């Protein structure tokens, strides 16, 4: 009996959370077209986000490319299919691994940062102070951040993909002595628009999800310093789950269209 009521509570709060998040999303779309557009703050956010995570994305991208190639090379060698290496790398990295890894890293870096920053601004009444100063804090803080992640994550993914493929090339160069130009040539030859366009669209949704959940958690932060920690932490957890969900849906939809 106790267990059942506990499950009930969990489900109730889960659906309440989804409801509130949808409401928050609705508010974003209502306010995004209203004046004034806080363009300066938007640019500042873009710059900060890029600045914070560029190095991280580069390092992980490089290592992923390197390791991925090292690990799959022996298998391909067994079948005598090493020449397939570039196309395999490019397709798997650009379609799947690059976007999801970069987005997860950014969820940890940018999403939690937004959650903590807005959370502490809420707790210390800075958001209230903004409203009293004649500024709509939702526009100034939330809309700019969501737009910034929506724009920056795709750019960071692009960047991460490129570095990743470079990491893969390093392995191929050492093991198989391929030239840089030839390798990149092969990589791009194996790509089609049907690889690039869906994955790029997907990354915009990733970016939107990271900004949205981070802002939602921070903006509605509970009072007290504990609240800030919870906001930052749950921002990362929920975003990561949401990223995989979006990924699944995106692949599902892409498959339908590719089959046709």
């Amino acid at each position: 009996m106790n267990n059942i009521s506990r499950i009930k509570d969990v489900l109730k709060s889960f659906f309440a959370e989804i409801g509130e998040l949808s409401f928050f999303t609705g508010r974003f779309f209502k306010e995004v077209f209203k004046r004034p557009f806080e363009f300066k703050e938007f640019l500042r956010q873009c710059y900060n986000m890029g600045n914070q995570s560029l190095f991280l994305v580069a390092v992980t991208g490089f290592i992923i490319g390197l390791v991925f190639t090292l690990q799959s090379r022996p298998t391909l060698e067994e079948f005598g299919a090493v020449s397939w290496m570039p196309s395999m790398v490019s397709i798997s990295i650009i379609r799947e691994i690059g976007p999801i890894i970069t987005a997860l890293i950014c969820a940890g870096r940018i999403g939690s940062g937004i959650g903590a920053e807005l959370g502490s601004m809420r707790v210390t009444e800075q958001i209230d102070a903004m409203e009293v100063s004649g500024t709509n804090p939702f526009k100034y803080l939330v809309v700019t951040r969501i737009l910034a992640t929506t724009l920056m994550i795709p750019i960071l993914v692009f960047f991460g993909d490129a570095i990743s493929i470079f990491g893969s090339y390093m392995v191929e160069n050492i093991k198989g002595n391929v030239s840089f130009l030839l390798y990149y040539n092969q990589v791009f030859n194996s790509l089609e628009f049907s690889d690039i366009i869906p994955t790029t669209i997907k990354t915009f949704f990733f970016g939107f999800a990271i900004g949205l959940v981070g802002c939602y958690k921070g903006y509605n932060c509970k009072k007290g310093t504990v609240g800030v920690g919870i906001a930052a932490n749950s921002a990362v957890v929920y975003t990561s789950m949401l990223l995989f969900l979006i990924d699944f849906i995106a692949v599902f939809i892409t498959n339908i269209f590719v089959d046709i």
Partner: protein
Amino acid sequence: MSTEANNTEHIIDIQNLRKSFGDNCVLDGFNMYLNKGENVVIMGKSGSGKSVMIKCLIGLEEPDSGTIKIMGKDISKISTDELNELRTEIGFLFQGSALYDSMSVRENLEFPLRRHTKKFGKIKDTTQLVMEALENVGLAHAIDLMPNELSGGMKRRIALARTLILQPSIILYDEPTTGLDPITSKEIILLMMSIQKKYNTSSIIITHDVDCARVISNRMILLVDSINYAEGTFLELSTSKDPKVQAFFK
């Protein structure tokens, strides 16, 4: 009724204010008014709803019922633009200073100036106004510091400067001396009094500090049991026989 007749003179008039959060009824029919040039001190236990009351007043919280009139305007009946215009006339000193962490002192002070464009138009050079506000609180040298480089007392002063920069005619202080040492508290109180004299402002001051209440108040209101429980001058209340009132002056 006499309060009705005098309504035009009250720059702030709160009637029958009710506000609850879920089952927690914080305000249950709170009344008060503020005359021009007057300093009203509001005292109440921690968690009694003083901050909630003052946030309803400035439109940060929406009351469940009751009317709030500022300079004759019912704030629940005006548009966001009108509300923002009204807010330029009201300074709000937040409980914890609420300086923007990510901005320098100068940017903190410029923020309300650049935002309330209706009152000031587009100001190109804000330096002079910023300096004047900082000089008022004796911290002109701190202009390029970040909030995390300031002490608690300095933060409170900068927050006061940020409030003053819009030259408001009403200032709302939410526990201006809480969390400060006695000496700094006294400095802040003196500062509040000098500002009052210089700009001829009216103010509502929320405080626990009996000394502060004594020197600054023209009239006091005690918020007890979710209502304006007792009202009067410092002398009247401090000599009251009611134990609930006496408790504040021990």
